[in-house]
């Protein structure tokens, strides 16, 4: 349990507890940002040997979601999906990432396959991964401004113009 003294609150990022919830029968774990590496290493030693996916969600428009009571919601959530071949099980870790300080430690040293996945999250959401070997844009052009999958980034629809086909009479 997180300690709360009268004048001080422990930053949720340093929370070292791992809370478990369940979503439609799938196991979901929550922990603090700075505990991500040790939580992943713990899971790895329990047999979750493959990192399937690293992605993120921007909860700007929907702050109500299913979280354990000890975790308070932040704007971004990093979702790490692991698979255990021995136990034939999957587990998901959801880490809250605040908007003003979108930094998360990188998983490259445990799973080098997250290199491209983390670059994609950085490109589309703006979350920085400390310690990543090559934190550059991967899908958008290098000089693109903005992070497209954020909710405050417009879809960029142009109004559909029905015009006469060029040259038709």
């Amino acid at each position, binding site marked *: 349990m997180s300690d709360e003294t009268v004048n001080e609150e422990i930053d949720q990022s340093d929370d070292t507890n791992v809370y478990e919830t369940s979503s439609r029968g799938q196991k979901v774990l929550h922990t603090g940002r700075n505990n991500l590496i040790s939580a992943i290493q713990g899971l790895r030693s329990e047999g979750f040997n493959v990192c399937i996916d690293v992605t993120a969600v921007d909860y700007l428009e929907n702050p109500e979601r299913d979280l354990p009571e000890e975790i308070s919601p932040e704007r971004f959530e990093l979702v790490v999906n692991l698979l255990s071949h021995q136990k034939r099980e999957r587990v998901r870790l959801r880490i809250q990432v605040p908007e003003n300080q979108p930094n998360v430690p990188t998983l490259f040293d445990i799973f080098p396959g997250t290199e491209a996945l983390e670059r994609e999250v950085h490109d589309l959401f703006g979350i920085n991964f400390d310690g990543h070997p090559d934190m550059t844009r991967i899908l958008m*052009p290098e000089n693109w401004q903005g992070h*497209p999958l954020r909710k405050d980034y*417009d*879809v*960029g*629809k*142009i109004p559909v113009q029905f015009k006469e*086909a060029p*040259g038709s009479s």
Partner: protein
Amino acid sequence: MAKIPLLGDSKNIGEEGLAGLDHNFLTGKIEDLVKWSRARSMWPATFGLACCALEMMATGSAHYDLGRWGMEVFRASPRQADLMIVAGRVSQKMAPILRQVYDQMMEPKWVISMGVCASSGGMFNNYALVQGVDQIVPVDVYAPGCPPGPETLMHAILQLHEKVETGEITRRRNELNGGAGIIVEQRDGQTATKVVIGK
């Protein structure tokens, strides 16, 4: 500056090509020959980007053979190609490369925009795609479909051939100051009894 008998002023021919020829019976025949050969051996450049590329490859394969019209050689180098079939969605990152490949092609060159994503952005009306490749290169034929089946693509190609052979395409391009902008109908899924090719 020499005047070539029956053909015209060599300066005009040098600068304007076929259009600089004198108009008489002989040069008319030469022009027809040139247009006939252009239509008969139009080599496409490989510009298959996404799903439409698979249908383009299907059109080039044994079942819907493009070799009947001399087009089965897809040239990798744009310098050797006449026709660029933009098959697939053009993203913002790909747009400068598309223009660069188009610029590297030699005159005369034509562009077929295959599929709805190349023609107008398709179902993806968003930040990531160029909404229609005609914003970057002048398009001569638009082939609709998502993806257009091989029959539609062949219909588009044959329309282009017909317009090249009659000279209609140059007329349209001059009129519109860009690509010819011919839109063909989708021709997929028609039964064997009613396939009208080329019209």
